[in-house]
């Protein structure tokens, strides 16, 4: 009975010392144990901001009076909007919104100043890309206060009777693509990209390191086969797995969450291939660096974390500081999210999403080049 509770400090210490030695030998694991908290500190501390400001907006200005200009100044001064371009036609405005070039369009109608002075309560129309409700809600909320206080100054003097009554200007907000601000509409399609990133990188990383860890790679390479055959042969099955995942998520999006599917599913599935390739290339590259399966998983996590946080999946992309946006632009998930949301919610066509495809393709090419180069080296 006594023996069971006989705790030897020496034995305990022996095991602890051995563990420390092994920890120190595995440089990568050690680096990641230190690296992950640092990464999280930087991202959560500096990059993430759930109250995005300076959102790009376009103006459709049809009025030449001073009140229209005053209003625009006030809107920009709120800090939430940054007017990046002026647009003439409604069609052009819609296209800019659809491609995500701007997040808002502010329409100041013809005769705005005149109607205002006549006390006819002119309407200004703000169209918002509400695919991500979190990114737009604060800005829209600020708009109403800004407009009311801005015009107070301009309707002083002979026209200050206008300020006496309820708002002198009517604000109409059109939340496009997701008018009811349903978070799931944004999250569920995005999940497709997140799940694919996770599986494609981890699984390919594992599939290849497993061969080297178990010694079967040596056998494989002693047979008449070439590295490219090995790599493609190992990757293709997981591409199919990726499509099964995509299918499941789309099905759930349709049946459980009733996410609108405005665009072409065929286009979505085709573009998914580019995204899958990008992630497989990363997994492949990791597998040539990692010495064992554990390291492959850790490295995947190291890539997954920034993808999750900086891509705009969890937090508004435009809320992040410039350096984080630049990092985010390099990640394939960022572009894929825009594509999925664009196709499903906005009904984007190929021309709309083309600017998001080539960064993913470039990423794939670079990652694959590194992977193939390293893969050759590990043969020797």
């Amino acid at each position, binding site marked *: 009975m006594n023996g069971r509770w006989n705790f030897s400090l020496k034995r305990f210490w022996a095991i602890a010392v051995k563990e420390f030695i092994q920890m120190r030998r595995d440089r990568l694991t050690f680096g990641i144990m230190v690296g992950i908290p640092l990464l999280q500190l930087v991202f959560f501390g500096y990059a993430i901001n759930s109250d995005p400001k300076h959102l790009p907006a376009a103006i459709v200005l049809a009025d030449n009076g001073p009140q229209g200009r005053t209003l625009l100044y006030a809107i920009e001064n709120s800090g939430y909007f940054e007017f990046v371009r002026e647009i003439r036609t409604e069609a052009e405005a819609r296209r800019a919104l659809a491609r995500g070039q701007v997040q808002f369009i502010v329409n100041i109608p013809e005769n705005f100043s005149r109607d205002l002075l006549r006390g006819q309560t002119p309407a200004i129309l703000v169209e918002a890309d509400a695919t991500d409700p979190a990114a737009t809600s604060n800005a829209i909320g600020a708009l109403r206060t800004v407009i009311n206080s801005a015009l107070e100054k301009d309707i002083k003097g002979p026209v200050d009777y206008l300020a006496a009554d309820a708002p002198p200007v009517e604000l109409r907000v059109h939340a496009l693509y997701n008018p009811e601000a349903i978070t799931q509409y944004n999250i569920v399609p995005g999940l497709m990209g997140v799940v694919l990133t996770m599986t494609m990188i981890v699984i390919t990383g594992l599939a290849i390191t497993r061969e080297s860890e*178990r*010694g*079967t790679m*040596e*056998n494989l*390479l*002693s*047979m*008449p*086969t070439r590295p490219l055959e090995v790599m493609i042969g190992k990757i293709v099955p997981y591409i199919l797995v990726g499509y099964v995942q995509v299918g499941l998520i789309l099905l759930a999006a349709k049946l459980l969450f009733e996410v609108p599917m405005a665009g072409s599913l065929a286009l979505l599935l085709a573009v998914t291939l580019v995204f899958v390739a990008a992630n497989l290339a990363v997994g492949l590259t990791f597998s040539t660096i990692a010495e064992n399966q554990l390291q492959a998983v850790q490295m995947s996590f190291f890539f997954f974390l920034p993808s999750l946080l900086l891509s705009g999946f969890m937090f508004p992309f435009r809320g992040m500081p410039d350096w984080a946006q630049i990092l985010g632009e390099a990640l394939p998930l960022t572009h894929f999210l825009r594509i999925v949301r664009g196709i499903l919610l906005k009904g984007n066509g190929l021309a709309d999403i083309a600017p998001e495809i080539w960064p993913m393709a470039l990423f794939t090419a670079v990652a694959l080049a590194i992977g193939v180069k390293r893969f050759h080296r590990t*043969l*020797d």
Partner: protein
Amino acid sequence: MTNQETPTISMHAESADGGDAFAIDVRDMTKRFGERTAVDHVSLKVRAGEICGFLGPNGSGKTTFIRMLCGLLRADEGSGKCLGYDVIEESEEIKLRVGYMTQRFSFWEDLSIEENLDFVARMYALPNRREIVRQSLDRLGLTSRKDQVAGELSGGWKQRLALAACLIHRPQLMLLDEPTAGVDPKARREFWEEIHRLAAEGMTFLIATHYMDEAERCHRLAFISYGKLLTEGTVEDVIAEARLTTWVVDGPELPKLAEQLRNRAGVEQAVAFGNELHVSGSDEPALEAAIAPYRKEPYRWRRVEPGLEDVFIHLMNRSEDNFS
């Protein structure tokens, strides 16, 4: 690949030594890993149908040499032919005709026996794949267990599976890297019978091993240490070339005697074999002078032919003196 030609040894190999074809004929094979030279200008010739034992201590470069032969590693220096193909340039041709059995079991433990064989057959694009796999299972007596996952097999069965898989494309040359490590004596004996049967049909073998009884079953031996080839030839050649003198002594308290003998000049080794001690040295008079004080009761001495193990240890010690 030249499809018209049947890739037989006689058509490609250079003839030498009275028309005998060499399955392996390489010169100055060298491989460096950074500062370390793992294989240092090793030249080796093995005739078709021969079983060549490849001996050497751990880390002597045996595995590296074998990997260079089958194209897994690129040689830094060296030239020559393997099955008539250029060992540097034509490794793809060589891979098609060589079976390489790795030191560690390297087939897929999560595939069944049959699936493993089927995979290998596909890799070599064998015609009549199913039939070949079936025959292979039959020949090795694995048919009844074909659906068993390879990871569940015992060491001996894993080795049989590995051999069957390496033979499935009917290679002309087999490179076996310590094939019987961890295999029981009965399975080892059966394994060697199979090797001799295949050699008689013309298959060539290069077998890395540590076991002296296995070395003695080889037609020829090559001994490598610290990356250098020290000696080569038949078992008799190797023993004769070592010019070793061995005395056997029995009597009481042999470990103490061994201790004393090891300190005397002329005694290179004093190794216990059961109740006897093998005392060897390469300088015959010096050895006899060294043991002279002990050639009295209660010890009984007799001179014997040195065994392969005595020679093996002798070569190992000598290479340590030379290179370390």
